[in-house]
């Protein structure tokens, strides 16, 4: 065949594939289905798959389908994306595309010149591109088919105390990213880039500059006040609002030099997608001195509150309370205690401010406070099941002794102003808990064994199953209605990522990253013998 004809034929063969396989904004709106197209599965962070093949009745027949050990990985925190049978996971400064059916690697992109080496939590997909952030704060756009670099844009400097770890969020024609580094002093922000060319469209700082509204809530150190944005956000297309959480004020454990509420740290921000302007904010922990970042997933639900259907955002906060806010206005609606070990506040008042118990700030000698520094909830993904109407949250029951240091804070020197750790004879314990969004109250709980070291999240399915990583390195399936154990599988590593659900060729899979590998599971079916094709290599 003539080369030109050959090329034309190849193009003709590939055209339908290229046309159908692009990810459109409306595809992400409809996710998840067979695909898992964004970090939280959908824009609401429900992490609820409509797939129904796996049920409480057959979950006992789940078996591993494939495992791929990712060379060089030692702490995968990545939530995989799946699109059109291809899975995309991230590691430090790296994206790996795998065949979601066989687990074989299709391509691998690594930025070996990054100035930092931090964990990475995942990628975004839009059009023909995969987007991820490098540790040294660059947003990278890669071709989803080959891993070829389309563009790379730096949006922050390591020299300013920043690094990046969160999965970008693709919304309409924009890619939204955040920054980390709040434990060492930095100034947090969220920014939007155009998906096609990587042009920065807007930037919203989470800590005001001197003289700006909100700066009156700071004493010193406002320039290094923290407010990291190290977890991906959620989005309401009707309101055209992004919901993004912010991290702790700095120095974490010593608040003596930053008297005031320290806006907008430990908060949830509602941001206009088009302009980047803050529409409202809600601060969960004013003047935080316990490193209780608000980084837990803001789950967007339409549910009945006090007998009225309401558009709400629910937020299981590190400080121990499960918050419900009106997501159009930011109005505080309710907060309920998630954990039994909670002693820093007697409750939350009508305006949403904590009612403080005195003398719970860290001291040089140590102050015993519940919850511990890891929080009652954290970035371990919650899930909301449309099948049961329940919200599932991984809770940690733990108290810590918090110490403080009045040493003159030096930014970028890994100085947090103190620290926190549990008493030796009081280790933490995880519980997978189901909450009724209508009341905020606990419906059932499933106690976990382990050392209190997991960071794994959950996913629910229309089939009536909740999957999560436990504190013993196991993927567990529970009956979503009752919390009854159905199935588990030991992966043998501490888990720091959340599972996802997807389908290829009409078959349902569950996948999760362990510390060093990707594991994928499905229902048992006998393998058919493979008839090896005649293969020869021409010289």
């Amino acid at each position: 065949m003539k080369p030109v004809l050959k090329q034309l034929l190849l193009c003709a063969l590939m055209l339908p594939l290229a046309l159908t396989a692009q990810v459109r904004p409306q595809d992400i709106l409809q996710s998840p289905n067979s695909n898992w197209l964004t970090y939280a599965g959908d824009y609401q962070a429900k992490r609820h798959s409509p797939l129904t093949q796996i049920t409480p009745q057959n979950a006992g027949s789940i078996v591993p389908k494939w495992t791929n050990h990712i060379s060089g990985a030692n702490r995968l925190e990545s939530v995989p994306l799946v699109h059109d049978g291809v899975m995309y996971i991230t590691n430090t400064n790296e994206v790996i595309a795998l065949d979601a059916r066989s687990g074989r690697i299709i391509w691998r992109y690594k930025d070996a010149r990054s100035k930092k080496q931090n964990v990475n939590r995942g990628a975004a997909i839009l059009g023909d591109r995969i987007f991820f952030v490098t540790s040294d704060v660059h947003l990278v756009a890669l071709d989803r088919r080959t891993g070829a670099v389309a563009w790379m844009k730096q949006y922050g400097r390591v020299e300013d105390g920043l690094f990046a770890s969160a999965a970008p969020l693709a919304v309409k024609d924009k890619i939204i990213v955040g920054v980390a580094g709040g434990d060492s002093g930095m100034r947090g922000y969220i920014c939007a880039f155009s998906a096609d060319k990587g042009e920065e469209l807007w930037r919203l700082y989470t800590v005001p500059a001197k003289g700006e509204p909100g700066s009156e809530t700071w004493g010193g150190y406002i320039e290094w006040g923290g407010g990291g944005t190290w977890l991906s956000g959620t989005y309401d297309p009707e309101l055209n609002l992004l919901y993004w959480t912010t991290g702790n004020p700095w120095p974490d454990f010593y608040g003596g030099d930053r008297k005031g509420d320290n806006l907008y740290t430990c908060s949830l921000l509602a941001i206009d997608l088009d302009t980047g302007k803050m529409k409202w904010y809600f601060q969960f922990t004013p003047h935080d001195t316990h490193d209780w970042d608000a980084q837990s997933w803001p789950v967007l639900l339409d549910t009945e509150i006090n007998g009225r259907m309401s558009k709400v955002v629910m937020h299981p906060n590190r400080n121990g309370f499960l918050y419900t806010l009106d997501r159009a206005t930011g109005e505080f609606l309710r907060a309920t205690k998630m954990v039994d070990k909670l002693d820093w506040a007697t409750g939350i008042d009508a305006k949403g401010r904590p009612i403080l118990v005195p003398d719970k700030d860290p001291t040089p000698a140590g102050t015993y406070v519940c919850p511990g520094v890891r929080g009652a909830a954290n970035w371990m993904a919650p899930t909301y099941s449309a099948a049961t109407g329940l919200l599932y949250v991984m809770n940690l029951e733990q108290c810590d002794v918090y110490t403080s240091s009045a040493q003159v804070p030096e930014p970028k020197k890994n100085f947090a102003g103190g620290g926190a750790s549990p008493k030796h004879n009081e280790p933490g314990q995880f519980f997978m808990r189901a909450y009724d969004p209508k009341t905020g109250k606990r419906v059932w709980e499933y106690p976990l064994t382990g050392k209190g070291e997991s960071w794994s999240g959950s996913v629910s399915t229309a089939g009536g199953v909740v999957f999560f990583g436990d504190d013993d390195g196991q993927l567990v399936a529970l009956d979503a209605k009752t919390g009854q154990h159905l199935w588990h599988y030991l992966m043998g590593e501490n888990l720091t990522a959340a599972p996802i659900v997807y389908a290829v060729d009409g078959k349902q899979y569950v996948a999760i990253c362990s510390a060093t590998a990707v594991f994928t599971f499905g229902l048992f079916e006998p393998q058919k013998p493979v008839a090896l094709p005649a293969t020869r290599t021409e010289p």
Partner: protein
Amino acid sequence: MWKCALLLACALALPAQHEDKSEKKPKNPAIGNPEAIAAGQKLFMTSCAGCHGPTGDGGRGPNLRERGAWHSLDDDGMFTIVNKGVPGSDMPALNRPENEIWQIVAFVRSLTAPAMDSNAPGDVEAGKQIFWGKMGCSNCHMIGAKGGFLGPDLSNIGAMRSLNEIRNSILDPSERGVKEYQPVHITFRKGGTLDGVCVDRTNYAMQVIDRAGKVHRIAMNDVEAIVLHKKSAMPGDYKTRLSRDELRDLLAYLSRQSTRPPDAKSEK
């Protein structure tokens, strides 16, 4: 041929030598020196114990026995902190001669150094008799594959734990919580019970070792009830049962339990 072999040997040796030089600084002679440590302890009691506690367990100042509080400091870093203090904090500069500051650093280092490096005083032979006889330690612990099954093997304890950790484990075995070797009583669905220590436990399986050394691999579906004990199986009354001399001798014996001989460099 010899030339080649020699070159190969040199090529292999060079990077190692280079690595060695870049990673290890010469230690101040006070570090690991028992006399300097003892002198440092006296200085610590007068200058540091007010904030850090007489045993370094912390008070107004941080706990120095917890590696987490200062593990990132090398000897020089610790020297600087003790010498110059921490500006802006309650940690003052210590106006003392350089050799005395090094003695304090040597003492603080010794709080977490392996027991075998601390040259613990006492009658090793008497300690051995206490371990294998009078106090019944060997009913539960092994040394050299002899002894009981309910506690950890102590054949290498001198190399793995600091003298302070060993002392605390003897005097207050439950103080740090019971993460391993947790005493457990199990009732089976089909009848019968089992007592032992829990080696590992998840919601689905459990491994228990009994006093006779039998390892029981248990599926949770077979279990009716589990009673876990928060306190260690180790008796908590050695504080009163052991005289001061007996404790010293037992520590002298245990601190010398190492499966490898002491490092030649550290002996110098």
